[in-house]
């Protein structure tokens, strides 16, 4: 199928083992059809930057005129971005912001905002004191670091009365369960949990809380407040049941939609400027390009049934 502006768009998916990215991957072909993007078969770099580099080489070798990627390790693609710039191939990155090398557009929600939102929610619910466990993602991932740093900063400045236990889980459910269990043993008075990724942390957290008899409604004094990130359907389900209290919905559908939108625009030679957009977001200027910061709403019991949330659209 020939797109309007002509020119194929290559896309690399970052990993195949998280629910968030799997939803994103499902949206991509669907929305590409809607937007009439001439999309090449997707490659998958399986969370390995070496594979990503190889995949991009293959995509450009096969004639891609623009590339969409989601580098989980944002440093190691500097050379690749340089090469693509030399070849005049514009790049749209999803979810992460490369620190070096030219990008046409970064499509992501503000991960620091996730950390801040989670911190504010927990801080308020706990009344500014008590203990909170933070199940962190991989320390080497920029998103994990952004969330952790923002959470840490916000807690320090706004809720100095709260003690935070940072647990490095490497995005592994098993580690998360063990660490949370151990920490609850040591500090039975932990009152809040912040999970960096609902996809991997949700079920283990619920199991541990259940085992400890802490999986009780929010009005029970034993309730542990849980805030998650991602916005997958299972988190919404848990919010409805009162098992967890909130999540930040990272918009998988918008990621796919605007990645494709900007890639097509790039092929067609369009340009953008910093400022507000027509889809409730803001484009900001980066040293090496632009970034469209998509909205990432906090979902609580109040708005969990909102049809617009991507987690309510997947079947």
């Amino acid at each position, binding site marked *: 199928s020939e797109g309007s502006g002509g020119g194929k768009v290559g896309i690399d998916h970052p*990993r*195949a*083992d*998280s*629910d968030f*990215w*799997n939803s994103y991957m499902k949206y991509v072909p669907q929305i590409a059809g809607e937007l009439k993007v001439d999309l090449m078969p997707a490659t998958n770099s399986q969370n390995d930057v070496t594979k990503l580099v190889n995949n991009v080489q293959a995509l450009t070798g096969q004639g891609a005129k623009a590339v969409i990627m989601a580098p989980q390790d944002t440093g190691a693609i500097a050379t690749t971005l340089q090469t693509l710039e030399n070849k005049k191939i514009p790049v749209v990155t999803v979810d992460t912001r490369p620190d070096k090398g030219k990008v046409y557009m970064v499509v992501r929600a503000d991960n620091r905002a996730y950390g801040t939102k989670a911190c504010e929610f927990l801080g308020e619910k706990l009344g500014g004191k008590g203990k909170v466990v933070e199940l*962190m993602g991989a*320390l080497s991932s920029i998103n994990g670091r952004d969330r952790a740093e923002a959470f840490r900063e916000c807690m320090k400045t706004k809720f100095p009365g709260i003690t935070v*236990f*940072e*647990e*490095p889980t490497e*995005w*592994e*459910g*098993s580690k998360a*369960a*063990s*660490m949370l*269990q*151990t*920490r609850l*043993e*040591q500090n039975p008075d932990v009152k809040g949990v912040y999970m960096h990724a609902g*996809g*991997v942390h*949700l*079920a*283990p957290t*619920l*199991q541990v809380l*259940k*085992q400890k008899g802490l999986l009780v409604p929010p009005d029970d004094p034993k309730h542990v407040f849980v805030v998650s990130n991602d916005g997958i359907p*299972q988190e919404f389900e848990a919010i409805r049941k009162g098992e967890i209290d909130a999540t930040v919905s990272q918009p998988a559908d918008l990621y796919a939609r605007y990645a494709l939108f900007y890639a097509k625009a790039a092929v067609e030679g369009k340009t953008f400027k910093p400022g507000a957009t027509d889809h409730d977001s803001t484009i900001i200027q980066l040293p090496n390009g632009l970034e469209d910061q998509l909205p990432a709403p906090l979902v609580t019991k109040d708005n969990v049934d909102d049809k617009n949330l991507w987690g309510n659209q997947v079947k």
Partner: protein
Amino acid sequence: MTTLTAPTPRVRLARFRDLTLVPVILLLLVVGAFLDPTFLTAGNLTNVLQQQAAISLVVLAEAMILISGKFDLSLESTVGMAPAIAVMLVVPASAGGFGLGLPGMLVIPLCLLVGAAIGAFNGFLIIKFQLSAFIVTLAMLIIVHGLQLGPTEGKTLFQLPDSILYLGSAVWLGLPASIWIAAVLFAAGIAGLAYFRVGRSLYAIGGNADAARAAGIRVDRVLWGVFILGGMLAALAGILETGRLGAIGSNQGVGWIFMVFAAAVIGGVSMDGGKGTILGALTGVLVIGLVQNLLTLKGVSGFWQPVVYGAIILIALMISRVAGGKAQD
């Protein structure tokens, strides 16, 4: 005259070699108690045991396979794949299953069956086709994991039949069921390898397969059985882990195999076969579990944890080297 002088002291020492990690465990308990008041509480130690229950079954499986002179890396993938496939066979399509409508009761037998099938296939390639065990099971590690990723499309399975959750989360007589299960299986393993002919034949095969064959041991059959049993134990580990975590993520078990080998080897099981005991392997698991627990309790920075952790493995290794008195292989 053929007189063997001064015979016995080294024999007695050899028996204690299984237990070289016991002082390490005691040291960890004492040091841990000083470092953190929670450490030496019944609750925390129960947690450690529960956290190690699933991986300990894989260590049990690997120890048996190593003692019989073989190797299995693919166990770690079985831990995730066997329960995932079993669950997909019974849950409806809406919950991510194949929609076959099999009864939920079947999920545990199916899971064990999948584990057994993987073990049998490994055994076929290694024993009948005489391929290198290391590399066959390395390829199988990748393939088996792919056979989980493919059908699930990388998604986590959240809606699980109750029966698969039960074992990993039930409490029997005040202790988590998974601890009981691991304890019983380890007791069976210790007794089986110490007091039964089939268990002793693993040592003979691992020590000198030709001699074992000459002594009338059905080497191929026994090895095959060990691989199948190993696959089933890994599948059972997957069941316990699933129950503990409440869902089957796409990387359940991934990365375990390194810890499994570390536990077995610091516990005195030789990579060259024919040497080591199940009890030793168990002490290896406990050391690793206690170290992990202490690192968590003390909140050691995630960046430096690997260094502390690896260093402790090295130290345990040196202790068992010095106590054991022999070069390792």
